[in-house]
């Protein structure tokens, strides 16, 4: 499965997507899952700034969960923004099911791909249910009211996120963790094939971190959704993701199954830490020991 993800450094040329696609559709259990890839992406903020990501070609395993890990400033969020069309690439393209994402109407794109940003604002008096209902925006015409399908999607999202008990509460009255669940529900109501989550567990208490990851687990096991998420917690990434992509200085250092990627030598190289990695019943256990100064 490692060949799903191809760093440009490894081959020196863009992947031959045609071959890869046919391989996948036979090997993949979710044959209706979206094929999602970025080709030769160059991403920067502003025109004369140094590119944060300088030519990344990545193909995400359809229907599975991929975690992006890497130290602060390694370009994880930037990559996610580029993939989500929030940041226009200086070069390169994003392809969904073989089609160039830039050719899609914004709403059509938003029906394919959802993004939950790191920070969000909402009016405090907005109820959870209404927030979730906003997720239906790309499915509705300008003057259309909520259809049966919209309502069903909202119900489903609320139930998957496990927030039916707070659905009528104003968002402003919720804890940070509950707010995060509500926002995830909004993104779920969007009913996209691909969902990008930017640090969904950062700043949450352990309970809500697990709640969020449980949703990710549900999406992995019960839906054909392709999920890409940025995680700071390496153990969490190892436990919940099918694939891990490690970034340092805007370059893909490693990609593959957690057991292949999360190694002591990779942690030393990417995160500049000495750590011990053990395999336990609960998954990989990563114990950071000390920072490396070299």
């Amino acid at each position, binding site marked *: 499965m490692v060949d799903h993800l191809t760093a440009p450094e490894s081959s020196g040329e863009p992947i031959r997507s045609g071959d890869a696609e046919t391989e996948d559709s036979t090997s993949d259990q979710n044959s209706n899952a979206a094929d999602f890839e970025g080709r030769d992406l160059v991403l920067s903020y*502003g025109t004369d700034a140094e590119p944060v990501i300088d030519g990344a070609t990545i193909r995400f395993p359809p229907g599975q969960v991929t975690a992006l890990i890497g130290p602060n400033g390694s370009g994880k969020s930037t990559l996610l923004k580029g993939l*989500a*069309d*929030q940041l226009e690439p200086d070069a390169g393209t994003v392809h969904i099911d073989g089609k160039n994402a830039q050719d899609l*109407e*914004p*709403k*059509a*794109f*938003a*029906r394919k791909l*959802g*993004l*939950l*940003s790191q*920070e*969000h*604002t*909402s*009016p*405090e*008096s*907005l*109820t959870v*249910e*209404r*927030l979730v*209902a*906003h*997720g239906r*925006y*790309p499915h509705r015409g*300008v*003057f259309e*009211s*909520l259809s*049966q399908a*919209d*309502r*069903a999607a*909202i*119900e489903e999202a609320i139930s998957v996120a496990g927030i039916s008990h707070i659905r*009528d509460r104003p968002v*402003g009255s919720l804890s940070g963790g509950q707010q995060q669940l509500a926002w995830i529900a909004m993104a779920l109501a*969007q009913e996209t094939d691909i969902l990008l989550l930017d640090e969904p567990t950062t700043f949450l208490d352990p309970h809500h971190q697990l709640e969020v990851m449980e949703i990710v687990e549900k999406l992995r096991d019960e839906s054909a959704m392709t999920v890409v998420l940025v995680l700071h917690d390496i153990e969490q990434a190892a436990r919940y993701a099918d694939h891990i992509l490690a970034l340092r200085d805007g370059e893909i250092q490693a990609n593959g199954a957690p057991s292949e990627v999360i190694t002591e030598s990779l942690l030393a190289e990417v995160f500049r830490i000495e750590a011990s990695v053990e395999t336990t019943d609960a998954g990989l256990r990563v114990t950071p020991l000390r920072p490396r100064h070299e």
Partner: protein
Amino acid sequence: MATKTSGLDQGLDSGWRAVITARLLWLAIGSTVLAVVAGFVQVRFGTYSMTFGEVWRGLTDPKILLDLGVWQYFLFGGQLNPGALLTPGSWDAVILESSLPAVSRETLVVWTMRLPRVFIAAVVGSTLAVSGAIFQGVTRNELASPFVLGVSSGAGFVVLLTLVVYSALAPLVPILAAIGGTVAFILVYLIAWQDGTSPVRLVLAGVIVNMVFQSLQRGLFFFAEDLGTVQSALSWITGSLTGTGWTELRLIFLPSMFVLVLALAGARQLNVLLLGEETARSLGMRVERTRFFLAAIAILAASVSIVAAGVIGFFGLVVPHIVRLSVGSDYRRLLVGSVFVGAALMIAADTGARLGLSLLAGSMGQIPVGIVTGLIGGPYFLYLMRKQQEMGEL
């Protein structure tokens, strides 16, 4: 709602029915009562004071209410002659000159002088409040208003320029004012544009454009040749409804209805914009385009009010906050509430502007309504700020 089974409570009905909450209903009823009472006072008192009975008889005078010709005179400025439409070349005869039938003095005062001014106040108040509400949503800034974003000062400058320098164009002042407001806002947009706009940059650019236009305004006063011009210019840039009648109402009524409908249609876009630019974009909104269209609606709304009343300050800023405190930040409710509250408060403020001096000082002079809104709006805004640490949350 046939979808009870889906488990969604009616708060989620996206139709406009669900927009009407008890609070919004009470707000609308309260506003209507205030509008009627203030309007009645406005019509009754003045240089020619009447008893309530006389006002009532004037208001319900069948010679007005039941005469189609009179209504044509009010609404179109003359007798309608649809036949002329069929003969090309004679379209200037579509509206023939006509006049009011002989009516009592009370009826005349009520219907030709005082009532139209009440109606105009209602329209001006609604459009200003809606304009402010939209600007606050578009810029996600609770201090935004047509005033802050340069629209008002641009319009004011053009008005002054016309009156002082190009006095021959004076009859076109309303339209020129609207153009000035639009130009000023486009300037603001250009200054704020840097790979797209941001709420903060928009407001900062507004402050800059405001300062420049206000300096230009003050500069122009030195070129005014007579006191009359200065007074007329002053009443434009402070905002006044003195002397307005059916002519002005005819000019602004249809545009105001048009713009209010457009605004309500944009309510959902505004709601999504409140979730932040990134979220709006990830939901598939063309953020810049939407913002621009919404801003255009807000400019149009502000222009409608400027055309009739000049530049009334503070109103577009404060009213949306009052409404937000009562019905929350959902733009569908906020805009509907702003229409009602804006109309009622403007009628009340204009009643104060027309009759206040005679009450306080015994003189019969009127002050521009813009002074009343500033005097009351400023301190009230301060009170809102103090009362709500986080202000009317946006």
